[in-house]
């Protein structure tokens, strides 16, 4: 059974590719099913606030999470459930946060995709797009100051976030400081309803790399094998001192921007294109065609995942909500400075 606690990272880097692929696939599957559960709870009116899913982006996300190791840092964005799990986030962090439980990592203070555990290298995103990249830079600068070499940091963004000044300043900063940053841009063709033609005008987002003096990579975001290899290489490059790595993964958002959105604006043409493939199905076919697992095993993984999700949801539902009377209304670590 897959653990709901952080997955142990393989000790040997030379682990068999099929083994990595299977592990990655299982995280993707767990993420997909966990998100589908959230969506159904949302439709049942059981979730306060929004629900944002990563359907169609699990391959690139999991490849990022799985390439990182202890001591690395990850700044996921809203579509990174798979990467979060692979990096070590417990499924409970996901369910407890969505449900606003007092015992969750955000204690009901912040919700859904904003969860994180900074001490464990999992950054809690703020909503403002692009803002997490320079935070990762700072952690990498701190690592350098503290002599902690060989650690890297990965940040996820959508293609829409490349239009923010924050993205630009941070990538330039990483380049000047030659930081081991892996910046993964998932170009899923839309930023909310906005198509790429209204977001940028370059032929390919990877053309930005040269303008920052960083290495650029592109990958088919629907193909798990490619994602694992490419991100794996990019992470190794960064670890080896090669400076920032800009990765552009192409895909299509297979869900609404959030679960409130029917994404009627997504072009049918794009859905038909290869980038419209479902990366989970693609990965599954690969497993079967390579005989890395048989149908019976896949089914058991599916059942295991559902079981874990049920457990996590059931547990989280029973957890107490925050009690405003017990709440510590203090925004200061130096509590004596609070006027609250």
């Amino acid at each position, binding site marked *: 059974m897959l653990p709901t606690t952080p997955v142990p990272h393989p000790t040997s880097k030379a682990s068999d590719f099929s083994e990595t692929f299977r592990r990655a696939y299982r995280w993707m599957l767990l993420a997909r099913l966990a998100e589908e559960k959230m969506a159904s709870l949302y439709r049942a009116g059981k979730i*306060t606030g929004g629900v944002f899913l990563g359907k169609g982006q699990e391959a690139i996300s999991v490849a990022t999470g799985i390439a990182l190791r202890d001591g690395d840092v990850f700044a996921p964005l809203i579509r990174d459930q798979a990467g979060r799990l692979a990096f070590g986030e417990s499924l409970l962090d996901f369910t407890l946060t969505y449900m606003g439980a007092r015992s969750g990592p955000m204690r*009901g203070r*912040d*919700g859904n995709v904003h969860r994180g555990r900074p001490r464990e290298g999992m950054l809690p995103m703020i*909503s403002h797009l692009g803002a997490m990249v320079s935070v990762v830079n700072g952690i990498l600068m701190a690592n350098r100051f503290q002599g902690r070499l060989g650690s890297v940091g990965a940040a996820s963004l959508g293609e829409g976030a490349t239009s923010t000044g924050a993205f630009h300043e941070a990538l330039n900063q990483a380049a000047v400081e030659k930081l081991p940053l892996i910046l993964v841009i998932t170009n899923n063709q839309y930023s909310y*309803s906005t198509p790429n033609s209204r977001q940028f005008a370059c032929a390919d987002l990877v053309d930005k790399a040269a303008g920052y003096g960083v290495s650029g990579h592109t990958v088919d975001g629907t193909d798990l094998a490619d994602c694992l290899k490419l991100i794996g290489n990019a992470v190794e490059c960064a670890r080896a001192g090669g400076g920032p790595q800009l990765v552009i993964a192409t895909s299509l958002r297979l869900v609404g921007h959030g679960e409130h959105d029917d994404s009627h*604006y997504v072009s049918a043409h794009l859905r038909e294109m290869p980038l419209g493939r479902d990366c989970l199905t693609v990965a599954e076919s690969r497993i079967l065609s390579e005989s890395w697992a048989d149908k019976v095993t896949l089914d058991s993984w599916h059942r295991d995942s559902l079981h874990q999700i049920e457990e996590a949801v059931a547990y989280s539902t029973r957890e107490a909500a925050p009690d405003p009377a017990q709440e510590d*209304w203090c925004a200061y670590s130096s509590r004596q400075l609070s006027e609250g």
Partner: protein
Amino acid sequence: MCLFIPAIIRGLSLPVSFSLHSELLPTLITYLEAIREALAKALNDDPRVYIYGQDVGFFGGAFKATKGLSQRFPGRVIDSPISEDAMVGSAIGASIQGMRPIIEMQFADFSTVGFNQIVNQAATMFWRTGVACPITIRLPCGGTSGSGPFHSQSLEGIYSQYPGLVVLTPATVEDAYSMLLAAVECDDPVIFCEHKYLYYHLKADGLPNEALPIGKARITRAGRDATVVTYSAMLHECLAAAEELAGEGWEIEVIDLRSVKPLDTDTVLASVARTGRVLAVGEAWPWGGVTAEVLARIASEGFNLLDAPPMRLNAKDTPVPFHPNLWGTHRPTAKTIADALRSLLRL
């Protein structure tokens, strides 16, 4: 301070025509629909007007405030990249070239990314150069349940500190409509704080033909025992509190500021002169902001009108919480306002 009655409203001798959208209009019109109607009217009446913001075009905006407008006004309702700084900067340029841009921030909270252009470029343009900068920046403001720290902020007190900005905070469907039209017609940069909680919750029978000018507060409920000064969504909590206290025999006067910069000191002082007691209520954080400014004005200009210390009630001094339980306690509510009023009346 003399008062500003926009021609766009003044001109309305005939009943407002909703032909643009009439087929969509239900009997009751929401705060959000009022905003959409105002946008449609502005686009229709004034060729200088255009709308620019993320997803405002075909999609009609995150809250659907611009729904259908890009189809009705081709080329004038434009999707922007996720670039708040450039969105505002370009609006400034267009405005000095004779346009009347309306910028939609997807949430007020994201305006912090365009902050520099707003407070340093737009706000100073007229004073520095004598050339006006008529832009309207729509900020979907305020808390709603489950929105959390970055989709709930009330920033009127931040923007009001900057000379050159007009900051409007409509609390009613009618004001959402008429004040947005006034904002577009205003020659100065206007920060238009729409409250998201009111978008769907608040409904009215129709849209107004007349409007109070910018800078004028409204006495929404008359009373003689105490004055509550408030604005935006808190108006409705205050009215509920006043109603509750009416049951206890108290007559509470409720003032809706409507515009927080400029702030209608005269109306506030005249009310305090009648009641002798005042409570200022705001949804923003406690340090500074609208309630501090209101109290400072009353204390310095109306000290002798007071029979008791002026009070204020704000949100708690933490980020806005996600969970409904916490959120409901973080901001003032009818209940905490009623409690504060009871204390005030006992003083």
